[in-house]
């Protein structure tokens, strides 16, 4: 469903010279895949994620999503694609404070024309196991529960692709494992998942691992063979 070809991204910095963060990146992710992106800090993972998520544009190269090239699309169309095809999960959860779980999960539906938003939000929260916490504020939830609300928000428009940038980065071990289980479940249900992680365990659970080093992408493992995780010792 996703095809990157020759993607380059250069940040112009006023003080120092330009910084090329992505170098000729090629990546094809099929429907239903579960891909982990690993790599050292500053290697360009988040930059790649922003491009994949249509929050940022590449300087050159082709990006096709479901066969449609996004390079020339106007901002409004990109927003619509984000709304319908992509769900984001962030390390910092990014929930609205003093806004209950249902209201947080409803946010993507403000910008769509879906009917019955409240019911959809409740269904999404039930799917992530928060059926009992519908009216709770983020301040009243544990980190793991907050991240589940964020996942429910990513799921509420029923997107095919989930993009997660270090989703376990702010979670304790147990919550992190819970979340991995949830991702496994979503993938089993047929959703495409791309997750950036420093977490060895999370990368292990992905069916495929790619690595970015200094802006260059290399394939690490392309099977569900979990023993491949030993290759990632340096990442963690």
């Amino acid at each position: 469903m996703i095809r990157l070809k020759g993607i380059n991204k250069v940040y112009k910095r006023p003080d120092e010279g330009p910084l090329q963060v992505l170098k000729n990146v090629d990546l094809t992710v099929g429907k239903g895949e579960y891909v982990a992106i690993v790599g050292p800090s500053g290697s360009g993972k988040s930059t790649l994620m922003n491009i994949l998520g249509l929050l940022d544009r590449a300087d050159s190269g082709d990006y096709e999503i479901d066969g449609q090239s996004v390079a020339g699309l106007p901002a409004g169309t990109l927003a619509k694609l984000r709304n319908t095809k992509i769900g984001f999960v962030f390390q910092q959860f990014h929930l609205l404070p003093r806004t209950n779980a249902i209201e947080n999960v409803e946010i993507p539906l403000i910008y769509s024309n879906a009917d019955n938003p409240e019911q959809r939000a409740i269904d999404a929260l039930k799917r992530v196991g928060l059926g009992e916490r519908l009216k709770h504020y983020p301040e009243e939830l544990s980190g793991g529960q907050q991240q589940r609300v964020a996942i429910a928000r990513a799921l509420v428009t029923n997107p095919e692709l989930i993009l997660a940038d270090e989703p376990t980065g702010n979670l304790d071990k147990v919550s992190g494992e819970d979340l991995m289980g949830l991702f496994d479940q979503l993938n089993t249900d047929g959703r495409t998942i791309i997750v950036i992680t420093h977490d060895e365990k999370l990368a292990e659970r992905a069916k495929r691992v790619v690595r970015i080093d200094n802006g260059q992408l290399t394939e690490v493992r392309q099977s569900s063979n979990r023993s491949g995780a030993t290759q990632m010792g340096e990442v963690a």
Partner: protein
Amino acid sequence: MNLKLLFAGSARMMLRHKTRTVFMAVGIIVGVSALVFMRAMGVGAEQAMMENINRTFSTSSINVLAGGGHMGPRAGGPVTTLKMEDFQAIEAAVPGVALWGVMQWVPKQDIRYQGITRQMSIYGYSDKPEAVWQRGIIQGEYFSAEDVDSASRVAVIGTNAAAGLFGTEDPIGKQIQVGSVPLRIVGVLEPQGIDTHGSDKDDEIHVPITTLMRRIMNVDHVFGGRVVLDNPAKVEAAAKQISALLRERHALAEGEPPDFVAITPKLVQDIVGNANRVLGRYLPAAAGVALLVAAIVIANIMLIAVKERVPEIGIRKAVGAENGQINFQFLSETVLVALTSGLMGAALGIIAAVSYGALSTTPMVVTPGAVLLGLGAAALVGIAAGVLPARQAAMLDPVAALR
């Protein structure tokens, strides 16, 4: 876009940031309530003035005054060319004259009663003064046509004048003295309060015009007169005929300025209406300043709010909000605050105006127009204050916002 969700979110935002909301609201509440209150005062004053005018200048009458200018005193002494005969000629020549009367007056005369002296104006009227000048008698009676014919030494007196001279005693039959002329009180005038020139209409006496002209002032001209027509529709045409007739009778040459003025109700309303319109511009200007300050305050608070809400805006964009939708959302938040405050301000203004009207003698009239004006102004403030912050929010780069 789901507006219901969006507005629900905006309402939550307002409630969640109570202090911020209150700060945004205060200016608008003050401005709008002041606007509604002042407008109520303005309309009240205008209506009171119009009522006053309609009482003194009924819609079917023309006031003819000596002199080409206004009703006040003139430089170079009084114009003496307007006579009672002029009005007799008008009655004969102008069709549709139902009634007419003439008037002369003299300001600030010493009126004596026993040991007391009181200064007051004396007005002289011809017969049927109640019908012509629309002012009745609450005790006794007005002087009669015979009194006018024979220049009788009788007078009717205003309530304040009577109280000043006679205290609580019955004024009827009392003998007062103007210079060497004794006058017998035959009636008490209906109270009328302060007129548009600021003089107390209840501190004067009325006598037959003949008595005033021959016995007190020793003049043969009148100050003016009133011609009442049988139909208001005839007023404008009659005024033209009166002007032509008087020019001819006073032997005025072509192009010479008139030595009289014929005032029609329309003319008066135009003049007063104009004065009120000027007044109506200054009053809301004060409220306008309050609203301008409110707009600046709101714009600044919203700009700060946008800075605080950067991650929120990033999230909204990430989940699919278009720039235009973010823009609309922030703008509608400001407008929502502004309109809510506007409603509160309007309610406050109405309550203040009605209470003030009830507790004081100032006439206050709240009109739907004033309330709509207030709400419109509030919405305008919301839009004006919201445009810039909303634009900033919409232009935020989501990647930077989420970092």
